[in-house]
């Protein structure tokens, strides 16, 4: 890996800007996401900044099962983000559809519509779990360029 791509990779790890999108959550997961962004946890330490527009964001934090109504919007928001982009599913509903799976108005988890990079289970996922999930996502990015990690899964 060249020095330039190393620098670029470093900068990506140090400045993940997030966009929060409610795909049909019961609102508890959203409150926990907001709680994770408050001064109590201070995510700006890691360079995380909440952005309001998908154009600026690198990480899409989705909460809740994807309802049929929001499916096309979620896809559109995802396509408005510029590469490289990552999706984090926050909450059990976002991971799999949770208790709402199989409802007449629910399409399923986030991964039934767009590719997901990290899953954070919990009903609702606590702020600490969310931070942990995002940090793990960043760590996996760091490790990606190496072809093999001893002991790690590929």
């Amino acid at each position, binding site marked *: 890996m060249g020095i330039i791509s190393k*620098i*670029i990779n*470093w*900068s*990506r790890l*140090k*400045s993940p800007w997030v966009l929060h999108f409610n795909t049909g959550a019961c609102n508890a997961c959203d409150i926990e996401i907001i709680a994770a962004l408050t*001064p109590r946890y*201070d995510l*700006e*330490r890691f*360079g995380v900044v909440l*952005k*309001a*527009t998908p*154009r*600026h964001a*690198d990480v899409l934090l989705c909460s809740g099962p994807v309802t049929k109504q929001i499916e096309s919007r979620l896809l559109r928001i995802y396509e*408005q983000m*510029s*590469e*490289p982009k990552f999706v984090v599913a926050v909450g059990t509903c976002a991971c799999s559809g949770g208790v709402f799976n199989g409802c007449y108005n629910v399409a399923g988890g986030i991964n039934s519509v767009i590719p997901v990079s990290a899953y954070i289970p919990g009903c609702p996922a606590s702020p600490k779990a969310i931070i942990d999930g995002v940090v793990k996502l960043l760590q996996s990015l760091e490790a990606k360029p190496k072809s093999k990690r001893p002991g790690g899964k590929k």
Partner: protein
Amino acid sequence: MLKALFHILIFPGLSFLFVFGFFAEYVDRKLYARLQNRIGPPWFQPLADFIKLISKQEIIPEEADNNVFKLMPLLALAASSVAILYIPISGERSVFSFNGDVIVVLYLLTIPTFAYFLGGWYSRSVYSMIGAVRSLTQLFAYEVPLFLCILASAMLADTWSLSGIAAFYNQHIGYWFCNIIGFVVALICLLGKLEKVPFDIPEAETEIVAGSFTEYNGRLLAFIRMSFNVEMVVGASLLAAVFLPFGLNLAPAGVLICYLIQVLIIIVAISFLRTLFARLRLDQMINFCWKYLAPLAFLQVLFNLTLKVVLPR
């Protein structure tokens, strides 16, 4: 020729401005975080943001006007970085000083606002159009008091060149106190120019997403953020040259250190104000500017005119 290139590219041109701009952004963000009882970003944060944005994929909306959309961030960055060449920062004289450069600097600092307006307008997204119109409306509110304050101080010094103003106040330290109203008003107007919190109406993210910059991403967004940083540095240096003219007769290194300290004081003041206040509405902001700031600026002009007649030179 070589010397001019050195001034434009290295000091006090682009390289210096970029480094100082990153530093200013860091100071601003860190202080903001500390005042909110947070730890705040690490020192390399602005640099990491910049590199990340530059290396991101660039999307230009189909509806947007391709050329204007791409050109405007560069124009904003260029205009605000040119202005530093007329501000005395490392000695009595600025690099390209001439009589009348106050006006040039003030207008060069207006160009970024117009660039943001045009960029936002030609993005053809509703949010960026609203943001663009707001930034232009805001311009009419803070620009008049800002101009009046700086010109009032120029009147007292009896010169239209920034180096002349700085030299005059450096010689007559006592006159500095006459401009204190102007300094406060100009500082508040600078907040409006930089779209910082009490006046961040054009990019109010809780109402209109990100204002004029809603559609910008990747490299263009990096340039816009950079031009804001440069504008902050240049605006603060302008205020420092006009209102805080101390230590100009030291050795060149001393002058530079003095200048850096003055600019940092202004940046710290900006972050304090930004932490203290919440966003105003557009009409409140315009009312405030025309009801209080503009009359105060006029008062400063009248005061300086009388002083000029009364005081011996």
